[in-house]
């Protein structure tokens, strides 16, 4: 299973990458939105985890693009320090499957990833 993680803070990106690799996932790590979009189109990962505030393209733009352009229903988790209801609702309306507010527990992230992967498998996406 491959997860693309888009996060512009290198230390947090590395932390998430190390945790997911330890859990047995392959990780594609990227620090900007534009590169994230390119890599999603090129590699079609099994899941996307993305920050909202990133250089070049935001996490919300990534959700829109994935939902418009990619046929496969890729689960998307948003990781963000933004707690405003308006932004959270917009993320879900655009097609996010989950929204985690920073700072977050790595174990909680892992559980949410596993749950979404199972749901995705049940829906026959893999």
């Amino acid at each position, binding site marked *: 299973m491959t997860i693309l993680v888009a996060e512009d803070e290198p230390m947090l990106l590395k932390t998430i990458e190390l945790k997911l690799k330890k859990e047995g996932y392959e990780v594609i790590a990227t620090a900007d939105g534009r590169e994230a979009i390119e890599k999603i189109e090129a590699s079609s990962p099994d899941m996307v985890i993305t920050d909202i505030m990133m250089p070049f393209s935001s996490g919300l733009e990534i959700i829109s693009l994935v939902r418009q352009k990619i046929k496969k229903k890729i689960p998307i988790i948003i990781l963000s*320090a933004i707690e405003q209801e308006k932004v959270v609702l917009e993320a879900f309306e655009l097609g996010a499957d989950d929204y985690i507010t920073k700072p977050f527990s790595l174990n909680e992230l892992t559980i949410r990833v596993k749950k979404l992967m199972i749901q995705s498998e049940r829906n026959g996406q893999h």
Partner: protein
Amino acid sequence: MWSDFCLQITNFTMSEYPRLYNLVILEELGDPSAILEVLSMFFDSAPHDIQELEKLFIEKKAIPLSQLAHKIKTVVSLLQSFRLIDLLKTIETRTKETGEVASVANEVTEVVSLFAELEKQLHQEWERLKKEQSTHN
């Protein structure tokens, strides 16, 4: 009284050296070498970010200051450094809302001094983890 003396010692220790971090999130990595890898990234980048924060404040660049405070907040959140999180949140929101930097002068000063202490404490933690790792190996 012995108990008073102990209390004084405790208070002195706590006020002089309050612990500014908690590694509970990084410990969820389940591997001391992974924690060391993340901490080494902190030592490589965070001091430059703090220097840049000061520079942006002096140059009165409110929006870049707000953006950088947001970025540093993400880092110190990983380390559960709550006083720094609060200060950086104030810098981020106030400069964004007002478009000026004068109202966050005290916060910037406190961030710089607390960060120096945090860095010192984390170096000690780093040494402890390294020692622990070499003992296990």
